[in-house]
């Protein structure tokens, strides 16, 4: 599309939210300009696959030394600069580097107070303005248009709808593709959890299990999260929605353009001020009656603060949530190392892992005060990450390292990663740090964060549950890392620009439009009133479709 002087909408950021908005709005016949801070990186730039270059030497991350954020510890005094490893400053944003773990949020997330009946008094837990069914068609649209592989209806009643049971027709929903080939540990783990009445299930992934929409099936290269997908089997904004927006001829994508300010007149958005990062001489201005921001929650809050967006309730930047995390690793000396097997029925050793475990999403256990829980992603210790990270993570050397290397070579293992509900607190917040400037002279984000005791207890509880089941199956615990009170930053960041039905208690309305500046929308996860307890990617994308559907 030729350079547009006044588009129907300016989209800031080209990742999960921005790319989706570009696709949805161009489909409606609108002309959009997408301003992306980072460069265009074709798949060729993601090879050779090299752990040292991309992981240890952080080739694709904003440098901590020059472009960090500041983390303030729970004591309010100690602070440190932090690498923002979750930011993918490139066309496609962090969808170029994600694991594409794409579950749907469900009513346990949308209506958290139905489960969390007595939230701790010093928290701010709220229900979202919708229920799961309001989002369902947008989830389906997201799965179709981004290309999600998976299998619906894997659970016993009443949970089928969580993976897409169609309650109107009574028929199981079908994902666009079957799930990726199972990991060799799947039967063993499924049996072990079944004995405890739990139901792990094959994960929905934005990863092709076979050729879909012209992109190939996953070859299980072993370089997934944190690496670019040179094969393009892993869905990204660039190889799905953004590609379609560009094909429409109505999307003007401009890489290397850093939006520094949202412009508005009284209560109406006017456009944006931005810098060309390759030629940062003079700020430029682009006008439009709609500006859609999608640059991840911390950065979106920072942009609101830099722009002085009217904030009568003093809420901008507050209620930042990361997910409650926790991990554990076990080895099973009663198994052999997981492998694809002679008939290649399973994934090879260096691959994704398959299973998710949601049985602790809602906790019904008289022995604990915890009620809203979370979900596990289940991996092989070899999974996703190449070897340096695997062995560095053990912190072992000498004979102890040899013993561990032998175990990893000989026996099957399992690694659990928890994503749990997180207590929202107004003290967890984003401010501007005027003492530290980014490479373009603007204050970096200053983030205050401490996990609530509920989060810490939840992480420990959930880890203990799965470790119990696994040790009963012959597992020996090798590492455990429950959530700590500090959190220097995480890829799942949400909530800094809360949406809600009441202008007195939210920054955005239910249409994700600013209450104070009309025409200003946010479609990254900053709108999420609470964290929910799953990977937020699909829900972010579904919401972008919903917002663009209703935008006028």
């Amino acid at each position, binding site marked *: 599309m030729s350079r547009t002087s006044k588009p129907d909408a300016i989209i800031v950021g080209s990742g999960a939210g921005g790319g989706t908005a570009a696709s949805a709005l161009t489909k409606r016949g609108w002309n959009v300009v997408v301003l992306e801070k980072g460069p265009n990186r074709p798949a060729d730039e993601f090879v050779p696959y090299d752990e040292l270059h991309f992981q240890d*030497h952080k080739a694709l991350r904003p440098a901590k030394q020059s472009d960090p954020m500041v983390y303030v510890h729970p004591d309010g005094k100690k602070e440190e600069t932090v690498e923002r490893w979750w930011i993918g400053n490139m066309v496609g944003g962090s969808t170029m580097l994600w694991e594409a773990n794409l579950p749907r949020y469900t009513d346990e997330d949308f209506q958290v107070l139905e489960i969390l009946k007595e939230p701790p008094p010093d928290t701010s837990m709220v229900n979202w303005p919708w229920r799961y069914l309001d989002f369902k068609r947008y989830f389906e649209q997201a799965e179709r248009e981004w290309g999600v592989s998976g299998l619906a209806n894997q659970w016993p009643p009443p949970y089928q709808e969580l993976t897409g049971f169609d309650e109107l027709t009574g028929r199981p929903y079908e994902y666009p593709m079957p799930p990726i080939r199972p990991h060799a540990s799947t039967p063993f783990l499924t049996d072990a959890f079944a004995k405890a009445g739990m139901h792990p299930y094959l994960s929905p992934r934005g990863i092709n299990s076979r050729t879909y929409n012209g992109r190939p099936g996953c070859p299980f290269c072993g370089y997934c999260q944190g690496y670019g997908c040179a094969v393009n089997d892993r869905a990204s904004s660039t190889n799905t929605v953004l590609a379609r927006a560009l094909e429409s001829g109505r999307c003007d994508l401009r890489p290397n353009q850093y939006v520094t300010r949202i412009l508005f007149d009284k209560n109406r958005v006017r456009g944006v001020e931005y810098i060309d990062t390759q030629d940062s001489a003079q700020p430029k201005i682009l006008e439009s009656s709609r500006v859609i921001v999608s640059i991840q929650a911390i950065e979106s809050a920072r942009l609101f603060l830099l722009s002085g967006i009217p904030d009568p309730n003093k809420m901008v930047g507050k209620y930042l949530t990361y997910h409650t995390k926790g991990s554990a690793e076990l080895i099973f000396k009663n198994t052999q*190392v997981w492998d694809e097997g002679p008939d290649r029925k399973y994934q090879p050793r260096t691959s994704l892992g398959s299973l998710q475990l949601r049985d602790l999403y809602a906790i019904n256990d008289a022995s604990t005060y915890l009620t809203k829980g979370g979900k596990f992603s289940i991996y092989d210790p070899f999974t996703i990450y190449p070897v*340096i990270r695997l*062995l560095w993570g053990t912190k072992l*050397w000498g004979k102890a390292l040899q013993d561990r290397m032998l175990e990893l070579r000989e026996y099957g293992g399992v690694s659990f990663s928890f994503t749990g509900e997180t207590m929202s607190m107004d003290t967890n917040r984003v401010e501007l740090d005027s003492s530290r400037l980014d490479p373009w002279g603007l204050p970096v984000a200053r983030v205050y964060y401490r996990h609530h005791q509920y989060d810490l207890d939840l992480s420990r509880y959930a880890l203990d549950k799965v470790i119990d089941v696994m040790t009963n199956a012959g597992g020996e615990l090798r590492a455990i890392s429950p959530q700590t009170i500090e959190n220097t930053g995480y890829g799942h960041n949400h909530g800094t620009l809360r949406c809600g039905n009441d202008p007195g208690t939210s920054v955005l309305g239910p249409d994700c439009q600013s209450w104070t500046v009309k025409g200003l929308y946010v479609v990254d996860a900053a709108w999420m009133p609470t964290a929910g307890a799953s990977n937020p990617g699909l829900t972010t994308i579904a919401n972008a479709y919903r917002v663009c559907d209703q935008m006028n």
Partner: protein
Amino acid sequence: MWKLVVPESGFFTPLERAQVGAMFKVLVPADRHRGIPGANDALAIQFLDNLLAMGSDVYVEIPEWRELYRETLPKLEETAFKVYARALVELSDRQMVEFLQYMQAGLLPSLDVVLQKQLFTALHRHCLQGCFADPRWGGNRDRIMWRWLGYLQPPEEFS
């Protein structure tokens, strides 16, 4: 496509190279009896010698590492003489394990606590990288560690 250019000559002096090599040998030791290859087999020291000769365009921390090794290796040598009455490269495996345990805990005498812990972390990490990074960086010779561990292919035996 990103291309690695390996420098023609390394960073270390022969003595520094021998000293770091002696520590690497104990950090990722070989075990002939159990058939496990180690840092010496992988030529992990070659990896670090190459890496430190590269610039900050390859990775921003490289200049700091250069300084760290150059400044602390003579101090380690002094400490080895004080404690064991012999040069670092002449410590027995058992003495070197003890020496590294002290360094990890920041307990080596007459050496700054933070500095020695920092050095241990760098040595440990660089040794693992020298063993398990892609061979294009100069270590993991002939993919020896990957082949033994079964990374990207079924495991092989070594004697």
